[in-house]
């Protein structure tokens, strides 16, 4: 049974320092819980892979295809010649295509966000409410009591004002 050591910091700088030290000390990559997005966190914890852009891109591509197919396909399902124009006129249908590209791009981005950030998640997870106000928390999972003690030590050293032992995944 793994436990998590969670240190609360006053300032992002100390929290980041603690996270860096923990990582350097061989712990699993710690996670930082903060009230604002932290700049420079990637230098400390390493670059994160991002899949959302793929969602957006393919969503857009699919949207374009879908948009044109919707316009052209429905136009031929029930032929309604209008205004001396072809059944499938290109410029107006490009506008539909454009709008659908964006619509599905947006929806795919949202899905990408939800999938990659694992939302929605309503089960109990590692969290300190203070981190939504003005505290910066660094959480790291520890395999055993020894690990916890070491993590606590590192975080205290970096300036954590409080260390909590929390059960739970993530």
């Amino acid at each position, binding site marked *: 049974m793994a436990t998590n050591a969670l240190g609360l*910091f*006053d*300032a*992002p*700088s100390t929290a980041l320092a603690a996270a860096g030290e923990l990582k350097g000390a061989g712990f699993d990559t710690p*996670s930082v*819980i*903060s*009230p*604002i*997005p*932290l700049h420079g*966190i990637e230098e400390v*914890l390493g670059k*994160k892979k*991002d899949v*959302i*852009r793929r969602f*957006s891109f393919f969503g857009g591509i699919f949207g374009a295809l879908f948009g044109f197919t*919707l316009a052209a396909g*429905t*136009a031929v*399902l*029930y032929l309604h010649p209008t*205004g001396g124009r072809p059944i499938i*006129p290109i410029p*107006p*249908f490009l*506008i*539909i295509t454009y*709008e*659908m590209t*964006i*619509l599905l*791009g*947006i*929806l795919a*981005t*949202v899905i*990408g*966000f939800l999938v*990659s*950030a694992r*939302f*929605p*998640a*309503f*089960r109990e*997870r*590692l*969290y300190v409410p*203070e*981190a*939504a*106000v*003005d505290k910066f928390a660094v959480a790291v999972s520890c395999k055993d009591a020894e690990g916890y003690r070491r993590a606590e030590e590192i975080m205290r050293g970096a*300036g954590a*004002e*409080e260390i909590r032992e929390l059960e739970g995944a*993530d």
Partner: protein
Amino acid sequence: MQGEREISYADVNRDVVRSLVETGSKYYITLGISATVTLLCFFFPWFYQLHYGIGAAGMNQPTVWGTYLASFIFWIGLSHSGTLLSCVLHLTNSEWRKAMYRSAEAMTLFSLLVAATMVMVHVGRPWFVHWAVPYPNQMEMWPNFRSPLMFDVMAITTYLTGSSIFIYMGSIPDFAAVRDRTTGWRHHMYVLLSLGWRGTDTEWHRLGWAYTFLAVLIIPLAVSVHSIVSWDFALSVVPALHQTIFAPYFVVGAIYSGTAGIVTVMYFLRKYMNFEHYITKLHFDNLGKLLLVLSLIWTYINAVELFTGWYSETSFEIEALRYKLFGFYAPLYWEMILFCAVAPLLLISKRFRTSFVPMLILSIAINIGMYTERFLIVATSLSRQYLPDSWRVYVPSFVEISILVGSLAMFITLFLIFVKIFPSVSIYEVKETLPEPEPKPQTKAGVPEWQPTR
């Protein structure tokens, strides 16, 4: 930062949560009034119109479009600054955006909703309006995607979806923050709305990217929306509507009126929601500069429109021009010029830009002028088309004016409800603009002044 006194991260949370949960009787009275006005001025006349037919309005042959459509364009236009401006400023990393963008986006959302109801009010048989939505049906009858109005349907649906998602995405961390401080039904609501947000580095990273991609997608969308609205007119062959400049004209006009709308909303938020520390002179100064630029572009496009009309030398265009400048609706035209082209020149003065009440008055004047512009686009051109013997003047009826007032009240009602649900100032982004907390000397840890409810 911008405020007169130092504000801490905790202050931000406290102020915002207070704005959500502490509700004075003033709020309820205002909400009650605006809801009643909505009911009396919007819904009752509308029901009467549903019963009687569009004839309850003042439209006639050949001016078959009237204030309903003008209101539609107006609300769509008002929607334009919110999300669009927010996206642009987000991508360009403007700090001053952060305190105001949430309410700006809310304006987008609610103006779009009001615009959508204006469509319902406008059409002759709103009970069949779903036929304009592409959905599979037994008859295999689909909407006509060749129609500029269908472009509208698609664009506005997309814009409404995009804007809602955009404002929601930006609010997730704030919902989480509020979640922790609320109880009862509010808490449950925010639990659902925050999706289980914790604020881990991964979540921040994903949100950051998703938000940026959305911003990138929404900017061209917003531009397309009002271009498409303009094509409802410009793709016709009506003199003075059949103009290539209409798309940029509408887009600029939309952003113009939307920005003015933001100024108005900012003023009231600042005044009545006690956000003095977040919405400051800097915002008004910057918005004022933006308004000035937009007003100049708008004036330029108006001049271009007049010039091309005059230069065309065709009877149709000249008459449309003459009618606009000197005809039945001329007083409205000159009112519009006064409010939208002349008055905004005051914005050259920094003192003006940083004075709250004058900015409020100007912003309202600009929007009155912009409403007039939309009305004139419909009324002057439709009442002066190709065949002079079918020309006829159009005057809005009481029902129309009432519905216009009612739609404004509906917007206010929606906004009032919004400010009690959504943190109307973005908590985390305001925090970002504050100086980073410094590590305190190793003493006793600050005990939070509330107990987490989780």
